[in-house]
């Protein structure tokens, strides 16, 4: 059943491309996305905690041991659910796209299909194929429909979009190259019989092999998760993308990277996290290195967001900061930390989507500027109060106020960090404070600025449309439900972390 999320998305893409009218393409896309969300929810209802839901298993290239094997555990299900929510909301927020509408939704749904594929793949080769499928539409979505900053409107907008799209694609491919090399190496070392996770997770890779394969694959995926210092594609890519693509990039695509880090690098090469046996600058293992990079990302992303002039860049850098919590949680190697990391993937996906929706759709499409300096005199809180309230709630969720999903996630990551890497908690705490500061600053400048001296109330902004309201409500409800009742997701994630697949990780440095 769950496999249909992938097929439906691809079929929907084709249907949207061939749709007779723009409205038909929109409705087709929305129906497809809703079907995906529905399938995810159905699977959730049928899933037995702790089990592996095998979706499809067909030999594909038996000579190489490659099979078409789709399966889901609680972690995959969480992310499938996130994809469904983000995809639906993204379509609602791109209802107003008039330029090559059919193609837009076609690319959009191909991207969604690829993402579903990655989260459901249970074969390393298959995962890699879907991972690559997801990169291509990203490039076109940004290069063709990207948002153009106004100061660059004098003929440079196009090149800016293409620059961002190219940067993103190159970073993605560079990361993929590392993953590919790791995959081939793992295949060779394990005897070249199978690339199924089930087999690979059990295969005792030699420790010295894991010691170099782990960082290679981890970095390869972490590029897409926005790990500092490989994050620079993220802010430019997010800012240049059209609203729905920013929502997907930050909401789901960055999760592909984080998911790969967990599912491939950490699950297959757990010994790579062990101590080197010597110390460099106080760092004694790859785990220390990546944990440090994660914390730097948290503080650095937040600090840079604090001084941005462009509203969309603020949110772009905030994603780097919040994804730092995912990586930090993974590197704690504790149940709390890993649970928190997966929860943070979901939570950030929803919240970042909402923030980008406010900035890109509700504000930019109406005011045609993203400069905080120019937004300040417009007093948007009075002009579009719905956007202001949504941003306040999304901001509250984003800074991790209790009651929203961000709190339960970051809170568990921090517990795990106290447990494993206590000194980094203090730094992460500073990162949270800077995060509060930049969210507050952006909110204040964008929505509650002082009116200009010569205020001209001449142009009224168009009112918020119904699709925008529905999309906001969907995302807000998701973050509130998880925040107030975290068991909906923790009951999925925790049993999966205790499954045999993660045994190597648990036996190693797990505490």
């Amino acid at each position, binding site marked *: 059943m769950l496999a249909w999320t992938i097929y439906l998305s691809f079929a929907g893409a084709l249907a949207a491309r061939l749709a007779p009218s723009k409205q038909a393409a929109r409705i087709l896309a929305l129906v497809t996305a809703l079907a995906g969300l529905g399938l995810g929810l159905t699977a959730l209802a049928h899933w037995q905690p702790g089990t592996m839901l095998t979706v499809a298993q067909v030999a594909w290239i038996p000579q190489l041991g490659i099979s078409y094997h789709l399966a889901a555990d609680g972690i995959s299900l969480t992310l499938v659910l996130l994809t469904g929510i983000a995809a639906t909301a993204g379509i609602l927020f791109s209802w107003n796209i008039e330029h090559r509408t059919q193609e837009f939704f076609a690319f959009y749904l191909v991207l969604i299909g690829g993402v579903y594929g990655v989260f459901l793949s249970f074969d390393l080769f298959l995962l890699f194929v879907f991972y690559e499928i997801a990169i291509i539409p990203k490039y076109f979505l940004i290069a063709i429909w990207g948002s153009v900053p106004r100061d660059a409107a004098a003929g440079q907008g196009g090149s800016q979009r293409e620059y961002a799209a190219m940067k993103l694609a190159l970073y993605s491919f560079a990361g993929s190259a590392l993953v590919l090399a790791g995959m081939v190496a793992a295949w060779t070392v394990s005897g070249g019989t199978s690339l199924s996770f089930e087999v690979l997770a059990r295969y005792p890779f030699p420790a010295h092999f894991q010691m170099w394969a782990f960082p290679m694959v981890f970095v390869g995926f972490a590029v897409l998760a926005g790990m500092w210092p490989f994050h620079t594609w993220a802010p430019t890519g997010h800012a240049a993308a059209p609203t729905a693509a920013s929502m997907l990039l930050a909401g789901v695509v960055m999760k592909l990277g984080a998911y790969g880090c967990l599912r491939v690098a950490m699950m297959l090469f757990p010994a790579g996290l062990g101590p080197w046996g010597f110390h460099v600058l106080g760092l004694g293992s790859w785990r220390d290195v990546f944990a440090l990079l994660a914390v730097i990302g948290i503080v650095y992303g937040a600090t840079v967001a604090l001084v941005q002039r462009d509203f969309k860049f603020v949110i772009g850098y905030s994603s780097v900061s919040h994804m730092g919590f995912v990586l930090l949680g993974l590197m704690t190697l504790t149940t709390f930390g890993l649970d928190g990391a997966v929860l943070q993937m979901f939570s950030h996906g929803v919240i970042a989507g909402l923030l980008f929706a406010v900035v890109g759709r509700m504000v930019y499409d109406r005011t045609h500027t993203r400069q905080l300096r120019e937004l300040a005199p417009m007093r948007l809180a009075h002009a579009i109060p719905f956007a202001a309230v949504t941003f306040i709630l999304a901001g509250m969720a984003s800074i991790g*106020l*209790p*009651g929203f999903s961000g709190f339960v996630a970051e809170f*568990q990551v921090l*517990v795990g960090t106290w447990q494993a890497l*206590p000194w980094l908690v203090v730094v992460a705490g500073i990162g949270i404070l800077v995060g509060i500061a930049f969210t*507050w600053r952006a909110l204040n400048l964008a929505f509650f600025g002082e009116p200009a001296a010569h205020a001209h109330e001449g142009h009224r902004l168009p009112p918020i449309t119904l699709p925008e309201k529905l999309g906001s409500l969907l995302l807000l409800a998701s973050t509130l439900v998880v925040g107030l009742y975290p068991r909906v997701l923790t009951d999925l994630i925790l049993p999966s972390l205790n499954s045999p697949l993660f045994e190597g990780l648990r036996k190693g440095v797990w505490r």
Partner: protein
Amino acid sequence: MITFLTLLPLVGGLVVLALMRARAAARMVALAVSVAALITTVMIWHRFDPNAAGMQFQVVHDWAPSLAMSYHVGVDGLSVLLLVLSAIVVLMSLAASWANAKHGPVYLALVLFLEAGLFGTFTALNFVHWFIFWELSLIPAYFLVRLWGGPGRAKAAAQFFLYTMVGSVALLLAFLAIFLATGQFDFLQLAQLAHAGQLTKALGDNLHWGMSGDRIGMLLFWAAFLGFAVKTPVLPFHTWLPATYAEASCETTMLLTGAMSKMGVYGFLRILLPIFPGEMQHALRPLLWLAVATIVLPAFAAWAQKDLKRTFAYSSINHLGYCVLGVCVAVQMRGVDARVAAENAAALTGVLLQIFSHGITAAALFWFIALLERRSGGARGIDDFGGLRRVVPVFSGLMGIAIFASLGLPGLNGFPGEFLIFKGAFPLAAWAASISVLGLLMTAVFLLTVIQKVFSGPVNPRWEGMPDLTRAERLALMPVIAVMFVVGLYPQLITGMVHSTVMQWVAGVRF
């Protein structure tokens, strides 16, 4: 009962928001809700058994067991007192803004949300559950200051918000570490652990920080202390307060000083005293110095102010300083045990009386300033007036009563609390009590200065035609003045109710 109490203003706030277009109806709903909340709190007081030890009206539900989160509410004497106080102060504030046309439905809804936050904070007994309300009450407060204040409101609100957040993050991190060591978030369980001396042991055994449990306990204590010190505030973390109280509209300041500032003292009593008794004893000397500074310096600062709102803002810090002093001396245990226990109990009883009476008095004082500002067109400088006694005799008389209550005149509500705190403090920490007397003296000096400059002297011709209080205003103020006399003349009303709670605390710090 308690769940209903917390939900009542929350739902009421949403209803008020829904009545955006019908201002008069919204106002009636807000008033009805706050009256109903007051009646409910009084009913809780009535049904509360003052002789029974422990928490009453407890409700426990599982929430997220893997994170030790539970829905746990209950009340003891402290909670009941603060529930009634919050309900009274909210009602006073609504009554004060009745004639203020600027305070529309959004304002009223925020006030009701704040009330829900207060009720939640004062009844929750699980850290996570409590923290939700602790943080969420900050959001409406922020917007009340930000949107309805004076010209400097943006800066003041920002300072208020960011300072409080720094404290909150420190508090959160401390509790995450405690959770990691004990697996507990429940205040009562943690207090039991601390009482049995097992908390520091657990911290030392389960956190691998390379420190002894005692040192970790001290670190966590200071982190948690920071959270409450900012909120109360304790010097030197008070700098947000004068600006915030002065820039917020008087009706908002009534809420901030009358009810919200009590959240800090509540934290001292509910969390620091029961969970960190050993640490408090250990840190007694610096704590006493901080308390003394909080009492004495703001009293001098208040004398130097030219703005009535700032005068009373500093006076508010000074009054809460007595509470901090009372809590700190309550852990002092040197000397003959029975004697000392009696003095501990006196000091703590004094703290509870002081919490209540300061809430009423400070809210009343800012109400009078609101009335004065409305008549003077915004003028509120201490030198702007003169001879008001002859122009508006009823106003002057009633405000005079409130000022004398604030000054601690016997027969009014300020006296019994301060008397009991000093009665406890002198034998337990004579030096601290002696220096603190300076604060009492300076309070008398600056309050009498206010009376002299505003009410006495030659009539300022500018205010010759100032109208006196209307009949409605007199009627609204009467119950407040009555409460001042009742508590002043019959403090047994409160001391009787809190007696067993106080005795439990006194027993709790002995182990």
